[in-house]
């Protein structure tokens, strides 16, 4: 009271020191909220099915090792994927509708750089062994992933690799400036730590296959398409194979490779300009061109359509052009003929017509418009096929297709054979190859435990959000198992809790420096950038301990257990004796990690 206001009127009102807990307001309720994890769209888009909202939640707290282990649960190759994945996750990221997608791919690399150097976490070791032995053809991403997941399920794996070192396409198809060998070696090291045996320089010959049934319980073939397709045109035999060239460079035989490809045949010596044409528009064409550039050769990519129709990753094309690779669009090769020390390439001018079934524009020749260009060498990078014809011919034998793998009928081989990787996949990517390896592991585990009839339904149960990606954590009944398959949409996010931000990503080497060496071009995120990026994640559908539900509950019906535990096992529950079902908690949950249900439903 203000001291000089005397003679105050009476003040008679209810004030109580007794708790209001006797009033069980929950009895009025016709509906009840419940904590329910949902599915984030990034996870559905990630072929490996990584638990991205959970990974970024941990990363944002600086728990890098935990975040990295969460990746490892679904993907044994985060260091490789963090560099070379085409990151469809970012395309599905809800944040993309708000400002920019979270830099999930760069964060994956950051986490592997930070945490991936240590030993294999002990809890990844299998608890028991099944006694089953699996032979795996190919140590590329499909074979490595199959071995990793099978070994973790307790099965013994042996990988057959034709090349002298393991890694397949990761080692021999992707240049070092995109994926340094040390990163790959570290990842393969973790897989062998599980007990996986890799037999290099040992191709899985047909003869070996004939005896496989006596030594193995199953065979997984994931040896991909490693043989480049030649140019079907007059003089096509003068063109060199792009993939073989990349393999030669990665094998350390770059100079001899160049010799072999007659680039030093010029009597003028190394001082004379040396040029190369690359036919194709995919990632291999780009990799060949950028590798040639680093060997001092001037590369020109010739593509029959336009830049926007090129199947190569857009940012790779950008880097190639910035480094000095030339691109000639709407030019199709007609013929190659020797012209002295060089090769003369006849090119047909093309024109755009209408969109084709795949949405890309079709092209037709412009009559009478062709020209000849001269190059020191011509490389074909128009696609690849299986090394051994029987690898892909096996496909024709029928069988059960699960999406990323194909189970062949037990025929001549006398044991179950599963095809995977690029031999089966619709999308030929590292991530899809890993997805194939995971699917193979789940399929074979189900086969051993429950028989072939159980495989399809078992795989269905592991699908993330009902999409194509599978989760090993769901297969093994981990916490992710209890999440709803409902995919969180942008509209489900309470955007009041987020502010727009477009932070800097990691930089890259200056283009002139990059073109002069095989040093990795893309820089990693700095710690501050990584924390900022991870903090931008909406954490769609998972509780990140923000405590809004408890803060805003008008009935104080949300109880926090383990409050003094230091944070790790803090858990909320709703006391339904007092919850009126008003729904404030759901509205204030920024990330759709709750659900409302009618009482008795």
């Amino acid at each position, binding site marked *: 009271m203000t001291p000089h206001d005397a003679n*105050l009127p009476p003040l008679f*009102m209810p004030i109580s020191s007794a708790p209001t807990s006797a009033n069980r307001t929950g009895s009025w309720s016709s509906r009840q909220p419940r904590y329910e994890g949902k599915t984030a769209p990034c996870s559905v888009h990630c072929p490996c099915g990584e638990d991205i909202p959970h990974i970024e939640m941990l990363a944002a707290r600086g728990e890098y090792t935990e975040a990295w282990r969460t990746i490892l649960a679904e993907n044994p190759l985060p260091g490789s994927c963090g560099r070379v994945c085409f990151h469809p996750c970012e395309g599905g990221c809800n944040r993309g509708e708000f400002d920019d997608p979270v830099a999930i791919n760069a964060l994956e690399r950051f986490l592997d750089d930070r945490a991936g150097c240590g030993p294999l976490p002990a809890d990844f070791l299998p608890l028991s062994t099944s006694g089953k032995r699996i032979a795996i053809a190919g140590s590329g991403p499909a074979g490595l992933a199959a071995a990793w997941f099978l070994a973790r399920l307790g099965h013994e794996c042996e990988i057959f690799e034709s090349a002298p070192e393991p890694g397949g396409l990761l080692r021999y198809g992707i240049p070092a400036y995109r994926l340094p060998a040390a990163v790959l070696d570290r990842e393969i090291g973790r897989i062998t730590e599980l007990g996986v045996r890799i037999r290099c320089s040992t191709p899985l010959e047909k003869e070996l296959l004939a005896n496989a049934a006596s030594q193995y319980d199953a065979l997984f073939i994931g040896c991909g398409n490693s043989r480049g397709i030649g140019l079907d045109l007059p003089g096509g035999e003068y063109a060199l194979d792009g993939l073989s060239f990349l393999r030669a460079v990665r094998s350390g035989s770059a100079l001899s490779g160049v010799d072999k490809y007659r680039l030093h045949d010029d009597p003028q010596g190394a001082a004379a300009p040396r040029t190369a044409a690359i036919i194709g528009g995919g990632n291999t064409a780009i990799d060949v061109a950028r590798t040639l550039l680093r060997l001092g050769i001037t590369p020109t990519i010739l593509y029959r359509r336009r830049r926007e129709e090129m199947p190569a990753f857009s940012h790779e094309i950008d880097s190639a052009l910035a480094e000095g690779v030339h691109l000639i669009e709407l030019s199709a090769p007609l013929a190659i003929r020797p012209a002295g020390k060089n090769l003369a390439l006849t090119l047909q001018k093309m024109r755009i017509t209408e969109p084709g079934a795949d949405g890309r524009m079709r092209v037709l020749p412009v009559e009478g418009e062709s020209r000849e260009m001269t190059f020191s060498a011509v490389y074909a990078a128009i696609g690849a096929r299986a090394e051994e014809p029987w690898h892909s011919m096996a496909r024709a034998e029928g069988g059960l297709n699960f999406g990323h793998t194909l189970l062949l009928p037990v025929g001549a081989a006398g044991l179950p054979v599963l095809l995977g990787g690029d031999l089966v996949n619709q999308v030929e990517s590292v991530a899809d190859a890993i997805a194939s390896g995971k699917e193979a592991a789940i399929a074979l585990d189900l086969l051993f435990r429950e028989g072939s009839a159980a495989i399809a339904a078992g795989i269905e149960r592991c699908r993330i959000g009902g999409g194509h990606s599978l989760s090993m954590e769901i297969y093994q009944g981990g916490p992710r198992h209890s999440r709803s398959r409902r995919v969180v949409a942008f509209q489900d996010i309470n955007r009041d809790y987020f502010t727009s931000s477009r932070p800097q990503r990691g930089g890259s080497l200056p283009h002139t420096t990059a073109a002069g060496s095989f040093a990795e071009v893309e820089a990693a995120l700095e710690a501050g950038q990584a924390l900022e990026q991870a903090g931008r994640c909406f954490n769609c559908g998972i509780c990140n301990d923000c405590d809004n539900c408890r803060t805003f509950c008008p009935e104080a019906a949300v109880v926090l257990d383990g409050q003094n535990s230091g944070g790790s096992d803090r858990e909320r529950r709703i006391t339904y004796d007092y919850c009126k079902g008003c729904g404030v908690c759901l509205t204030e949950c920024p990330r759709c990690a709750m659900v409302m249900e009618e009482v008795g439903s």
Partner: protein
Amino acid sequence: MKMLLEGSQACAEAVRLARVKVVSAYPITPQTHIVEELAKFCSEGSLDGRFLCVESEHSAMAAVIGAAAGGVRTFTASSSQGLALMHEMLHWAAGGRLPIVMAEVNRALGPGWNLWADQTDSLAQRDTGWIQLYCADGQEVLDTTLQAYRLAEAVNLPVMVILDAFFLSHTWEPVDLPDQEKVDRFLPPYSPRFCMNTADPQSLHGVAPIGVYMEMRRSMQLAMEAVPEHLARIEEEFATLFGRSYGPVESYLCDDADVILVTSGTAAGTARVAVDQLRNEGEKAGLLRIRMFRPFPVRSVRQVLKSVQKVAVLDRNCSFGAGGIFASELKSALHGGNPAPVYSYIAGLGGRDITVDTIRQCFSLTRAAARPDIESVWLGVKEELLK
């Protein structure tokens, strides 16, 4: 210091001078200028208070109820539909005996959609337990807002400071802006008679069973009955410091008047001009402006009207089926006192002008009729539109 201020700004300046700690409001024309000004004060720091943005007027009132229960000085403002949406919370603020001050800008209720002056919105809240003070000019808005805090905190009832849409809220007038130091002397820091305290947890405003509810309501009525005495004392202090006072009612040339016009708000300024004209013409006309509507100042009204022959009441409002609300209240107040007939007129709804001629018409109709109509007489209505 004299400044040229809009009525809305005069209100906001008073809130700043009162050192209010929590403001919560939802914008609605014509109240918007008040809360825009306060949001600016809070953000620039010239008012050391929190401005809470909310999603509705109901929440705005709920927010200031919570803050007031926490023992701080609070303010909100609304108008028309916004005030109507607050209705439930208005009862809560008064029943909770929380000294909240609200500016209420009189605006017509829809439909039809109308932004202009009309008192029906605030008068529809007359039974909620709020003190209601109707202002006539910018200076009075500022002064009344300062007095409102003293009054509210003395009797533990909330106060509505009421101003006409546009005629007052958006009109610029010279206003004397008092020194902070003087205001601080008039209005010291708020010291609540009760408040929430985390050191001694209590629940406020809980269940009141049959055995005590009536006593709660009686205590509110007693607080209302104490208002005139407290207002008089507060205004006396205010006059000592600032040289101005208003009273619950303001009478103009009433002592010898045979007909007195009773009205409120900005219409009173126009009425004064009409009364001056009539006096010049030899008529014994008088004006009674009702400033305090709740509690209704029965004693003051009876005193001013004790010997008048006829009373005319001009209402800018209507209780459908009963007529002008001030007229109804006035008849009730006079019952048992001066038996002079009360003539009820309604004009100016939805912002229509009340002119000098409108006022003069009230006087001439009142003089001409031997006794009043049973129903209120509507002035300035385009009857042809209703055929």
